[in-house]
């Protein structure tokens, strides 16, 4: 997968062009697009879904695209974030912002737990062990009926209004809900941009490109991998927490391995290892799902076909392919 990714450390002084511009102001561009986004969507709930899955894919992409490890267990991170946020509200009556923090922390912790166990394994084994561990997480939450509602799902995450510096905001209003969630997603994108531009971001890619050389240069490869995986868990946990607030329930399916497969699909479609790829992938995927499922119930056929086509013909994904064109 390495050949498809582009380095984020482009020398800045070369020819201008949209690609250079986009790279320099990437987080701001995401912010701008997100702000006008719901105006062009058929309905706001779809826009919210795109935001949340985009964020989920952003976190996943850190491991998949930038670190070069295929995880088939990210549902555990997303789901833990959602459940912890929901449990904080339903069982402990925490305010919404504390619950989001709980979800984020849950993602980090779960990633640490899975990471410690899985990070030594490589390649296909990493995919398998993350899948197996996320299955264990699924059953853990499934069995903890008192906290999670088990198969019935966790209900009652009903946040009607949110208090913001004394202001009471109507969270049921779809537009307001969108912008509240968007604020978190934009913040996450800024943080991600900072991480990737930092020296640590360079180490992540160095590990992907050549593990031996990274090690020889004095970097702790295992620790870098673990840290990256944990950071990824933070983004996915936040996405999960927002999902819980948005849906006002947490279904157990959120931990199903199909949720893990979905994010692989979104990242691949958008372009792995690219900054905008996850959001583009989420938008294209969910809009397409919406359109296609209107005229056929056989939506899976289309998904599968798109997936095959991506692997065969556009391994760099939509955004990756655009970048390759833009650089020329």
């Amino acid at each position: 997968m390495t050949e498809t990714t582009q380095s984020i450390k482009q020398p800045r002084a070369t020819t201008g062009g949209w690609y250079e511009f986009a790279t320099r102001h990437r987080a701001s561009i995401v912010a701008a697009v997100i702000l006008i986004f719901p105006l062009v969507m058929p309905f706001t709930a779809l826009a919210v879904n795109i935001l949340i899955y985009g964020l989920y894919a952003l976190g996943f992409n850190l491991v998949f695209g930038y670190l070069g490890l295929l995880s088939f267990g990210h549902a555990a991170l997303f789901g833990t974030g959602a459940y912890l946020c929901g449990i904080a509200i339903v069982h402990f009556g925490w305010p919404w912002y504390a619950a989001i923090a709980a979800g984020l922390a849950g993602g980090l912790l779960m990633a640490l737990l899975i990471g410690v166990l899985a990070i030594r394994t490589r390649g296909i084994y990493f995919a398998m062990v993350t899948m197996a561990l996320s299955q264990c997480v699924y059953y853990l939450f499934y069995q903890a009926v008192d906290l999670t509602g088990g198969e019935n799902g966790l209900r009652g995450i009903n946040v009607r209004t949110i208090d913001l510096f004394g202001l009471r905001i109507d969270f049921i209003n779809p537009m307001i809900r969108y912008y509240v969630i968007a604020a978190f997603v934009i913040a996450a994108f800024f943080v991600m941009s900072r991480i990737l531009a930092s020296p640590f971001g360079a180490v992540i890619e160095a590990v992907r490109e050549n593990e031996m050389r990274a090690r020889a240069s004095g970097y702790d490869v295992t620790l870098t991998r673990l840290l990256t995986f944990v950071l990824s868990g933070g983004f996915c946990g936040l996405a999960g927490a927002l999902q819980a607030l948005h849906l006002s329930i947490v279904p157990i399916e959120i931990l199903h391995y199909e949720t893990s497969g979905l994010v692989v699909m979104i990242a691949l479609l958008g372009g792995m290892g690219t900054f905008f790829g996850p959001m583009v992938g989420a938008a294209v995927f969910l809009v397409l799902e919406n359109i296609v499922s209107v005229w056929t119930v056989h939506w899976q056929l289309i998904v599968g076909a798109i997936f095959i086509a991506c692997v065969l013909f556009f391994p760099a994904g939509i955004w990756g392919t655009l970048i390759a064109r833009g650089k020329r």
Partner: protein
Amino acid sequence: MKRRRGRGAGREGEGEFRRRSLSAAVQLAINNVTKERGVIFNSISQSDAINEAADLSKYTFHEALNPHMTSGAVGRYAFAKFGKKVAFLTADYAYGHEMVRGFLEVGKEFNIENLGDIRHPLGTTDFSTLLPRLQALKPDILCISNFGRDQQIALKQATDFGIKKSIQIIAPLLSHASRVAAGPQAFEGVVGGCSFYWGIEDKFASTKAFNDAFRKMYDGKLPTDYGALGYGGVRTVLEAVKGAGSVETNKVVAALEALKYDYYKGPQYYRKCDHQSVQSVLVIKSKSKDMKNESDVFEVLSTEEPNEKYLRTCEALGHKS
């Protein structure tokens, strides 16, 4: 906007869709959202939780049976007839747990002996490691509380293991689609409950009228249990809107609460405290021979008439009188 969400009305005989879209989990999820938004929701999937105070929404009605009613009716029939030693094989999720709770509750009246309850994970495709254990318990009755594909496979494999030779198998709910998907062999002789079977058309004019209309619309096909439920779920809301002369939520809710109806299976009404439809429960047995047509799959053994005493009391559900 007020709209009923009786998902699945008119979509016949699709087992997969039923298991997914009509699972109790989905129902409770919809309930949570409609409760928050003040939208009327008439649910046609089984759950005890939806009646309870914690999940109660004044906008939600429950047209389906609930596990307590279903297991109660089947238990009262089976424990009197087949014996007192009972073993349970139960899907490990709310639906299964609620069914077993119901069976044990009614079992007290019959002094049944509970030989053991084996819980299997949802989505089990092989019961060969559980069946020998159950067989070794030597029960009179094996009560299998699961649904959909789990039920189809469990019954098929129980048949293969020769369990039916000495043990009567009962199930809380036998769905038409599951019986068709699993075939007559697997379900042969199994006794269970259901909310509707087209065969009661000899008994109720409303059933006859519904069946005839259905036959006309779907070239001669007969409605299944869930087909009828979907119909009932929509029809009641529609009639309530007509009665109220308005689509304003509170007026429609009031009209639904006042409704005494007989649209497809005999008399029914919604109980005030939890909006559970008080209705009859049919105890049925799967047929394997002498079938008159492709829908002729069950024989109605007995009918438990609608009565609030078969429901959990409003107090037990946590409602304030």
